């Protein structure tokens, strides 16, 4: 094949302390599978990593921007660094995140190699144009990596647990009351009583107004906002948050004064629940009792996590426990847990404590496939392509 990309890329690192350098080396040689090689000087590098939390790092970065500034770059820092054309990795470094960013870097550097103009001349423009299909491919690959990152935000990385081991069971639980999620849920309950007015939530980085009856939430952010996500991950400090009721007129005034935009409350709560759960279920959820799904979630307007349609179809047909669901459908537990957490936040899914599971695991494996399964499978693949 022509233009076979090089197996590994050289990456120069700047401003790191010994510990961080050690981590990089370990990641490069371990999970990086030799795709990345640490080098000392920028001339022999195809990409760079800068730690902007050190004075050295900042100085090197300024110097680099002045002299080179054409390589794909990863920026390491404790706080968000939104620098155009760079990939940001938060410290302390999480290996999976670093690996994803490295993959992105490698793709970008391969692209840079291909598209490097032989000489600076007017033909460069047409060169760029003929890049079309490969640019599209690159964009798609990067989009796929980013999509995966987002999935991890919703479903976490946790491996399946062995339900016979007590210490493993603890890992699947989180305590909603420790997080912002519970505050929103509480506000929703309070707001239920009001036909017209709403609840104003203050003390977050932006004010949020919640109207349960109209299934609306008003704020100045998108529900996919990064800051909001960070807030959902932090332990809740009740001291700062305030809930006030607003009458209908107060509400109108407030919304127009602060120019708040509305979005469906359901979708908002669903998103918050996914971020908070990250592949876990609320503390106390019985993993062995069957799940009752009241009805199919309105998936066209909600974030569809992996296997959510499949899990819904199974539960509508055959209520079974969270652990059985993962077993019967042969899917990782974290996807079942995350979906359950979101659906239960919208009061669509419950653990049915009265019932013992209606199917034994033997029956489960006997679940009859539809006679047209292979056709449906091909049809489905086509729709998902």
């Amino acid at each position, binding site marked *: 094949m022509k233009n076979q990309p090089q197996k590994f890329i050289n990456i120069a690192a700047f401003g790191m302390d010994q510990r961080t350098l050690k981590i990089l080396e370990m990641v490069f040689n371990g999970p990086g599978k030799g795709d990345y090689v640490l080098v000392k000087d920028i001339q022999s590098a195809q990409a760079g990593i800068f730690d902007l939390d050190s004075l050295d790092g900042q100085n090197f970065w300024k110097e680099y921007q002045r002299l080179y500034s054409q390589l794909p770059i990863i920026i390491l820092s404790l706080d968000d660094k939104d620098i155009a054309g760079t990939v940001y990795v938060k410290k302390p470094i999480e290996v999976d995140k670093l690996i994803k960013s490295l993959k992105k870097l490698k793709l970008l550097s391969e692209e840079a190699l291909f598209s490097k103009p032989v000489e600076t001349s007017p033909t460069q423009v047409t060169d760029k144009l003929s890049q079309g299909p490969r640019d599209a491919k690159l964009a798609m690959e990067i989009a796929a990596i980013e999509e995966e990152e987002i999935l991890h935000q919703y479903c976490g990385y946790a491996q399946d647990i062995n339900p016979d081991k007590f210490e493993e069971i603890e890992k699947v639980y989180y305590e909603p009351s420790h997080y912002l999620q519970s505050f929103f849920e509480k506000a929703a309950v309070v707001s239920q009583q009001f036909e017209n007015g709403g609840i104003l939530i203050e003390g977050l980085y932006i004010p949020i107004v919640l109207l349960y009856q109209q299934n609306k939430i008003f704020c100045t952010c998108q529900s996919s906002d990064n800051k909001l996500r960070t807030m959902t991950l932090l332990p809740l400090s009740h001291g700062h948050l305030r809930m006030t009721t607003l009458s209908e007129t107060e509400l109108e005034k407030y919304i127009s004064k602060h120019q708040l935009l509305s979005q469906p409350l359901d979708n908002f709560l669903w998103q918050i629940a996914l971020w908070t759960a990250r592949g876990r279920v609320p503390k106390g959820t019985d993993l062995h009792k069957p799940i009752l799904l009241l009805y199919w979630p*309105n998936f*066209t307007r909600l974030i569809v996590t*992996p296997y959510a*349609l499949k899990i819904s*179809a199974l539960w509508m047909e055959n209520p079974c426990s969270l652990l059985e669901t993962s077993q019967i459908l042969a899917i990782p537990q974290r996807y079942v847990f995350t979906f359950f957490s979101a659906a239960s936040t919208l009061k669509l899914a419950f653990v049915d404590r009265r019932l013992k599971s209606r199917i034994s695991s033997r029956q489960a494996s006997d679940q009859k496939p539809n006679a047209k399964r292979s*056709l449906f499978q091909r*049809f489905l693949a086509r*729709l998902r392509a």
Partner: protein
Amino acid sequence: MKSYKLIFTGPPGAGKTTAISVLSDTPVIVTEAKATKRDPSHQHKQTITVGLDYGIIKLSSQEKIHLYGTPGQERFDFMWDILTEGGIGLILLIDNVRTDPLEDMRFFLKSFADFIKKTKVAIGVTRMDISSTPKIVDYHQALSLFNLNPPVFDVDARSKKDVSLLMQALLYSLDPGLNEN
């Protein structure tokens, strides 16, 4: 060559022709006529379907899914039994702007009851951007009287993503054991 069929139905103007066109690999063959002023249910569109809509999804050179849309007007309902014969499932689209969308749903569920019993149905509620009521939960409540619990999604028939998701939900209802990849 193996071929299968999928049926789209629903009241006039619900988006059957539109939904079939966004999925079909070939231009949809429709028999449309200019909507007349006499029919108030067609105020928002220029044409109505008087015959069947027809589209195709080619899975391979050996395999095709035929997409059939029933004409919306009830005077054509004599064709429905023949049409559904051997079909793999039903997509029911309901226009949320019409006078009584829940009654529309009941009418079509009754008309296609035998077919639904043999296969599955998935319901798309269209034009919810124009009229937000009845809500999706109202549909589920009405459905419980039919002892049915199909997927009901807010669907814009012009959106391929929406129509495709509804179709995927139909397939999973038919067989939850299908794989994602």
